[in-house]
């Protein structure tokens, strides 16, 4: 089948070009982060770690990082918990209006974030809830939960109902079966869900922009910095750290997912979503 192989070859070239397109911005980040010039352009002028050093003495940055971390951790915990409830209910039980209820829960996945942001803003202002990290968390949990459910659904779905029944048959209570059989088997999914909710929350801009009040999150802080050209190399340095951190987190999440698959002796296919 020379035709197919030829076609595959053409596609391969295209795929490589596409990867270049995908990775171009990310590859540039460290290049300019270590470049000894305040102008972000080629040719490069020299190597420096000055921008990373400068990062160390910006208190506003530090507090933004802390705020973001706090929001992301809490968001990850809550949305994963809500995700577990919904995914378990959806995969194990039949209940009235199931499709409708699950549909509403998943809507944020296909809703422009600006709309989530402004509608929450309207409500919070009307009921007099002061904008703060709390309001950002409320918004972030809303948009992260569908992602968590999508991941956890996969974990819960691949569970054979008879595993749970076997545990009960062998003398465990319903809770015992959940704790001893179901939880260990979906644990990799739970970890992946936590990591992904954390990453989404860390990165989310528009909801935080509308709802964060006087405590900016990291993306909101960064957004402010982009207006000052002389701050750009520092932003590049910060970006580099963020990208490395996200990639580490995502590799960790993927590793957990695969370990889960391997543990169950399944075969691997695809990744998240």
């Amino acid at each position, binding site marked *: 089948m020379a035709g197919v192989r030829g076609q*595959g070859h053409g*596609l391969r070239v*295209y*795929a490589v070009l*596409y*990867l270049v*397109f*995908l990775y171009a*911005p*990310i590859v*540039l*980040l460290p290049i300019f982060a270590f470049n000894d010039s305040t102008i972000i*352009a*080629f040719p490069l002028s020299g190597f420096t770690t000055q921008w990373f050093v400068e990062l160390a003495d910006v208190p506003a940055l530090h507090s933004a990082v802390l705020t973001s971390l706090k929001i992301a951790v809490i968001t990850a915990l809550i949305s994963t918990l*809500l*995700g577990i*409830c919904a995914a378990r*209910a959806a995969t*194990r*039980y039949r*209940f009235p209006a*199931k499709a409708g209820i*699950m549909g*509403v*829960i998943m809507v*944020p996945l*296909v*809703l*422009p*974030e*600006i*709309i989530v942001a*402004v*509608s*929450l*803003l*309207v409500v919070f*202002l*009307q009921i007099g809830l002061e904008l703060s990290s709390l309001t950002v968390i*409320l*918004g972030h*949990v809303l948009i992260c*939960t569908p992602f968590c459910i999508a991941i956890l659904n996969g974990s819960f779905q691949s569970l054979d109902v008879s595993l749970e029944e076997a545990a009960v048959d062998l003398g465990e209570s319903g809770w015992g079966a959940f704790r001893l059989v179901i939880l260990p088997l979906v644990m990799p999914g739970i970890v992946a869900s936590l990591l992904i909710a954390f*990453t989404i929350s860390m*990165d989310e*801009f528009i909801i935080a*922009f509308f709802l964060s009040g006087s405590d900016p999150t990291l*993306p909101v802080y960064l*957004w402010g910095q982009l207006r000052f050209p002389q701050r750009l190399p520092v932003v590049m340095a910060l*970006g580099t750290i*963020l*990208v490395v951190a*996200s*990639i580490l987190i*995502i590799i960790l999440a*993927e590793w957990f997912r695969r370990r889960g698959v391997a543990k169950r002796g399944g075969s691997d*296919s*695809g*990744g*998240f979503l």
Partner: protein
Amino acid sequence: MKDSARGLALVSPTALYALAMLVAPMAAIVLFSFWTQDYLTLDTTLTFDNYREAVTDPIYGQLMVRSLYISGIVTAVTVVLAFPIAYYISFHVAPERKALWIFLVTIPFWTSYLIRVFLWKVILGFNGVLNTSLLGLGIIDAPLTFILYNLNAVVITLAHAFAPFAILPIFVVLERIDRSLLEAAQDLGETALTTFWRVTLPLAMPGVIAAVLIVFIPTVGDYITPRLVGGPGGLMIANMIQTQFLRLNNAPMGATLAVLAMVCVTVIALVFLWLNRRFLRGRN
């Protein structure tokens, strides 16, 4: 009966959360859009004034049309660029390396969106990476100006940002296609190309549709990209909503625009789904 009660109990925390944080705010914003605001005083009499203004003032209509237009182009470009990748990974990559490829494709998505968009500005700018490189290589004599602060830049940036959202759903359906169907088609006399057209593509359609919707809907409301790389000609509806809320102190007008944007997106999505169903039925 007992089972369904248990299911409802279990789903209720999540459902109640969605009710409180999604359904109620949506209802509120619809209500809000019928109010008016004068500086800091809200007038809660219900009126169509905002909608009238939104329809008659050409600036809003223009922005809405432009948003939909840009999203439409972004969606088309993203999906068309993504399909061959999904196809390549599904059909030409060895099974044990597929996960790696999918992983490679999704990694950029998990890095800061804000920074990625900003980097496109760095790449495409007047003194940007692309221009300085091309000048340095002697390919061009003067910097290209048509690539930043306009629609092109928005399209490139968004096509980049939403790539995995387009690739993944298409990949998933391609993976599910029973390979013997393709062999059967060739056995029945189709060429590789006509097999693709008559078997693979129709079977991949649900994935393409999903990709289209997943890219189209959020891009209509994108805020960062038009602000950073769009220039004045590339601004979209989300920028106007933000302006109404945070700068002009006219939240009801912002709410109106948000509602209109939602309605437009929903209508377009439904029309699209309907057309697709007719298309699929027409084929059968």
